């Protein structure tokens, strides 16, 4: 199977595989890396010592996320009419934008697609193909932000051995995606929208809070005391929908094995650590590898990496320049 298929299957829930064949150049790099153990350790410590822990990408991302959601809120409150609607569907300066997963649920439930719905969906599809698919999750979705904040509490509690993290099978999300789609077709209701914390939070911000926030609160409790980032990791079909879009996106986080000391800091901060399986010693097959569709391009791994082995990359663009 090709790397594309492997990554796609990995997004659906398959366990990461060891590479069948490692490029000669990578083999050479690995040999050189470990040739002189003392030098290797020295270099590692050197890199650590000179690594200024920054939150560059996280801060940029939070700023974008807050600005986007604020734009929705202010458009309504101050009647600027720049970005009208909410995250499920909106109009930017008059142009229809429709969330891909919400559109999918409506299409399946209603079984009828009007022109505006198609235009809005297609526009958003193109937009996220360019921007990287699950970029939506980490750079726009308001639930991602609150979940990211409560995750810190979860990790603290895990650290103090007050709670343990319960992992579910990653394939559960694929099952949810299928079930929610099926339920839309069968019941004729957009069942997922009832629970979607993305829609609930977006509407609460714009139109005012309500009971529905109670559900979001329960989800956060579950994530703090039972399972780390459970909604985003194992349930949310929005993530998978955008992941599929992102599978053909040139916007990627890429990994460069030459610079890596294989310490795994990146995997510890990652929402979807399976995409960073390539950073495990011996798993990289090419000099430069993109992390694939399930990566939310959040940049936490880029911030945490002391050696610049992980970078944002627009495929094709670097060759052009």
């Amino acid at each position: 199977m090709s790397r594309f298929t492997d990554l796609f299957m990995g997004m659906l829930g398959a366990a990461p595989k060891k590479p069948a064949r490692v490029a000669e150049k990578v083999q050479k790099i690995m040999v050189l890396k470990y040739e002189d153990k003392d030098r290797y350790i020295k270099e590692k410590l050197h890199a650590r010592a000179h690594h200024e822990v920054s939150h560059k990408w996280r801060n940029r991302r939070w700023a974008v996320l807050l600005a986007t959601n604020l734009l929705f809120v202010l458009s309504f409150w101050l009647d600027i009419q720049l970005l009208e609607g909410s995250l499920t569907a909106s109009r930017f300066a008059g142009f229809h934008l429709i969330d891909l997963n919400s559109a999918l649920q409506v299409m399946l439930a209603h079984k009828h697609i009007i022109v505006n719905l198609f235009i809005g969906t297609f526009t958003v599809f193109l937009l996220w193909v360019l921007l990287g698919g699950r970029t939506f999750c980490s750079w726009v979705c308001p639930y991602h932000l609150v979940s990211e904040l409560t995750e810190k509490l979860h990790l603290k509690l895990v650290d103090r051995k007050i709670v343990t993290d319960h992992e579910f099978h990653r394939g559960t999300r694929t099952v949810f995606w299928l079930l929610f789609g099926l339920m839309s077709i069968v019941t004729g209701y957009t069942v997922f929208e009832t629970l979607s914390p993305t829609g609930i939070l977006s509407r609460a911000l714009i139109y005012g809070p309500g009971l529905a926030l109670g559900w979001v609160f329960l989800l956060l409790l579950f994530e703090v005391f039972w399972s780390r980032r459970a909604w985003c990791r194992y349930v949310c079909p929005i993530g998978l929908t955008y992941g599929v879009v992102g599978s053909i996106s040139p916007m990627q986080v890429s990994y460069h094995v030459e610079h890596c000391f294989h310490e795994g800091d990146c995997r510890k901060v990652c929402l979807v650590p399976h995409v960073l399986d390539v950073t495990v010693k011996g798993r990289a097959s090419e000099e430069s590898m993109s992390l694939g569709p399930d990566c939310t391009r959040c940049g936490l791994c880029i911030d945490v990496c002391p050696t610049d082995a992980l970078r944002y990359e627009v495929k094709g663009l670097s060759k052009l320049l």
Partner: protein
Amino acid sequence: MGDAEQAPRKAAKPAMSIEKAQKARRKFLQSVGLTAGVIGISLLGYVPLSRAAGTRLRPPGALNEADFLSSCIKCGQCVQVCPVQAIKLADLNDGFGVGVPHIDAREQACDFSCDAVQCILACPTGALTYKKPEFLNTREGARLAVAPILKAKEKDAEPTLNLKERIGVAKLVRPENCLAVQGKGFKGQARGANFKGEMRYMDVDRWKPIPVRDHPYDLELCDLCVRECPLKNAIELRPLKGADGIARMTPVVMEPCVGCGVCEMICPAESAAIVVEAQAVWKGASV
């Protein structure tokens, strides 16, 4: 048989340790539990639906309730364009109807002060629509005989509202509360000094709705529901036959009524004598 065959093979080549296998099994079961749990909770959305089917007044141009719930994308663009903020989004206690728009006519009715039914224009999915696709069924009596004439636009080149179906029908449900039926007049603010509802008054400003409380009345016989009805020939007062010699009138709802709810909002009686029956269809005049 199958067990006997499998047992020795397992013993010969353990794919994983017993501990690992147990862990994997637990993970699988927990994942099944998570799936069942979330799906179960999501299906709770049915409960409010089965209880309260058809009791919400939807914005103009709404498809039939089931189609409306399935096609609405819960974005609230209709809320944003409404000049009198008549449209509200439902909360989680509406189940699958969470985030779906509705109108509470007593608090703030749709008075068509936007002229063009802006909410329909704003809807991205066709849940609110000027023209319903043919394969969607139309309930008998929901279709308006002719395009309703908006009093405010009566002198314009195009005086009609682009609306094919009604969203409800007004009904005099508490005639005993009706001031006209009692032969009484009305003086003052229709809904009191604290009422927040707004309406467009053509004699004040065609393009700017004002609070109802800023527009007091002085009427010899209360005719607010007829006077403020935004549509032509949707409601009229007819004399009541009475032997006591008092001039009494009763409001009579007629076929052009689209169910906008202005009569319910403006009715000064507590509780309102006239209300909109949401999603009701025209069944003939009730006199």
